[in-house]
């Protein structure tokens, strides 16, 4: 029975020890992410586009989980899917009137874009496939999540954001923490991003304000509740 299933799915059958569940999940998420991304391009209706985009980004989060980047995956779900897209849907609703829901693109443009995109894709795929062997030890790939679930993955990230690299000694083995020039923390980028976010929030709220009305000042406004995230 196993052989019949395996013969249908050569990708998975090839993996050592029969069907590799991680491979299967990867395939599932990858196919979902890519096909839904294509659906975003093909769809005409903005709301449908955003729906496909949500699913595509969600599948990508699944890929992140598989790659052992659980925190990034959860972050992707939370911020990208939960936040950004709700914002986007707000935008769609606010601007979606019948004629604007679907603005058609000429077929000529689509063909051209398809050609250029196809060429680019070919180049990128070539680079992806024909590059050096990226993987170190493929044998461990099998039970990746199981192996990584022992130690918390979020703690080093959090420490790194605070400027302390706990993975430093793992990386450079015998290197002493003293010549930490190789790996510094991310405190500065973290702060920059924080301030950036704040500025962006204020800026977005300011931009979205209608300037035609004489303003009584003071009040924040409705759109900023959406941008508050």
């Amino acid at each position, binding site marked *: 029975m196993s052989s019949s299933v395996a013969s249908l799915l050569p990708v998975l059958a090839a993996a050592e020890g029969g069907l590799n569940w991680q491979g299967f999940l990867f395939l599932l998420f990858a196919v979902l992410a890519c096909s839904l991304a294509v659906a975003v391009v093909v769809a005409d209706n903005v709301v449908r586009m955003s729906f496909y985009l949500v699913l595509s980004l969600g599948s990508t989060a699944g890929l992140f989980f598989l790659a052992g980047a659980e925190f990034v995956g959860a972050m992707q779900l939370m911020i990208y899917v939960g936040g950004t897209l709700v914002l986007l849907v707000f935008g769609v609703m*606010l601007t979606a*009137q019948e004629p604007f829901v679907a603005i058609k693109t000429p077929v000529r443009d689509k063909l051209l874009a398809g050609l250029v995109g196809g060429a680019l894709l070919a180049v990128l795929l070539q680079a992806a496939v024909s590059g050096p062997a990226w993987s170190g030890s493929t044998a461990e790939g099998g039970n990746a999540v199981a192996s990584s679930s022992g130690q918390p993955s979020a703690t080093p990230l959090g420490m790194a954001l605070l400027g302390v690299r706990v993975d430093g000694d793992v990386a450079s083995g015998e290197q002493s923490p003293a010549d930490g020039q190789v790996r510094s923390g991310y405190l500065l980028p973290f702060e920059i991003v924080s301030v950036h976010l704040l500025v962006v929030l204020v800026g977005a*709220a300011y931009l*979205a*304000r*209608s300037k035609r*009305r004489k*303003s*009584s000042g003071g*009040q924040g*406004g*409705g*759109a*900023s509740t959406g941008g508050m995230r």
Partner: protein
Amino acid sequence: MSQVIDDDPRIIEFDVRTDEMLVNMGPQHPSTHGVLRLVLRTDGEVVSEVEPHIGYLHRCAEKIGENISARQFIPYTDRMDYLAGMNMNLGWSLAVEKLMRLQVTEKARHLRVLIAELGRIASHLVGMGAYGLDLGTFSPFLYAFREREKILNLFEEACGARLTYSYITVGGLTADLPPGWLGRCEAFLNEFEPIIREYHALLTTNAIFVKRTGGIGVLSPEMAINYGCSGPVLRGSGVDQDMRRDGEPIYTAMYDGYAFEVAVMKDGTYPRDRAYPAVPADAVLGDCWHRFFVRMLEVVQSMELIRQAIDRYSACTGSLGEPVKIAEKIPAGDVYLETECPKGQMGFYLIGNGTPKPWRVRARSSSFSNLSVLPELCHGCLIADVPAIVGSLDIVMGEIDR
């Protein structure tokens, strides 16, 4: 972005140009109390204009009235304000009696007071319960109906019907009370009295309830009078007017000798301010909270009137008197009489021409006028306030559409 209301802090300033939307609230909608249809012009959540459309329950009552005798019209009055049929019976009976220059016996008079005030409680209980429903809390509705059922049981014992009574009629009442009824009525009052405190805890003083009703739909006294509002809607705006005290002699004579205080805010306090919850800081005179509170006070007031009526009725020795014949001729002439029904002043205008059938019957409905003020109250409110305001007007479509 149809209008900007600067001084209202509830209105969020619009940052994005939005489009107006016409929304149909009703005639099939959970909170329009029957078949009222409101066309809302909204900008997001803010309502800029409300237009009521009525007539879905029009049953040609006035035309029917021209083709049947005056006493035969009694059941049709039941079906106007079907939540307070007794009071409608009373209004029509008194109007016909006024035209016929008829006076009922003393015993019938006290029984009428007793029944009418019970009917008022029953109606206000629905108004209160349904108001809770409008604001999204379901339980008070059932608590209210539990007590209303007891009143309906009493009515059923007295006249055999639970909704359309036709009990009070021209010339008196159709039947006397069954034995033991007064005791049961008193028992009900004793049971009911402590329950009112529960209602106050669940609704009147509930923080969310006050937030939802205080300062919402403020109706100024001038506007209330100008729109012909009456009943708790008028008194909720602080206008001291109650037909039981200020009406025509034939009606006020009914309450002759009864002690009661009109439930209206005078000098910043209600007559019962000491025993019952104080007015919260959020409430403004004329808002939904006050309209609701006036109804709650009237329930207490009616209970006192009922207690007095029970005493007086049981002290009466005479007979109840006989109602007029079904096809009794009514004299020529025209009369207009307004009575204080639970929803407001219900007026009946009738023209007789010497035959049993009136030449013209006109019912001036209190809910009709009370509803007509709705567009004014809903100016610039939020969608969630529309049910709150409609509910505080306590309308009955049967009475509006007739």
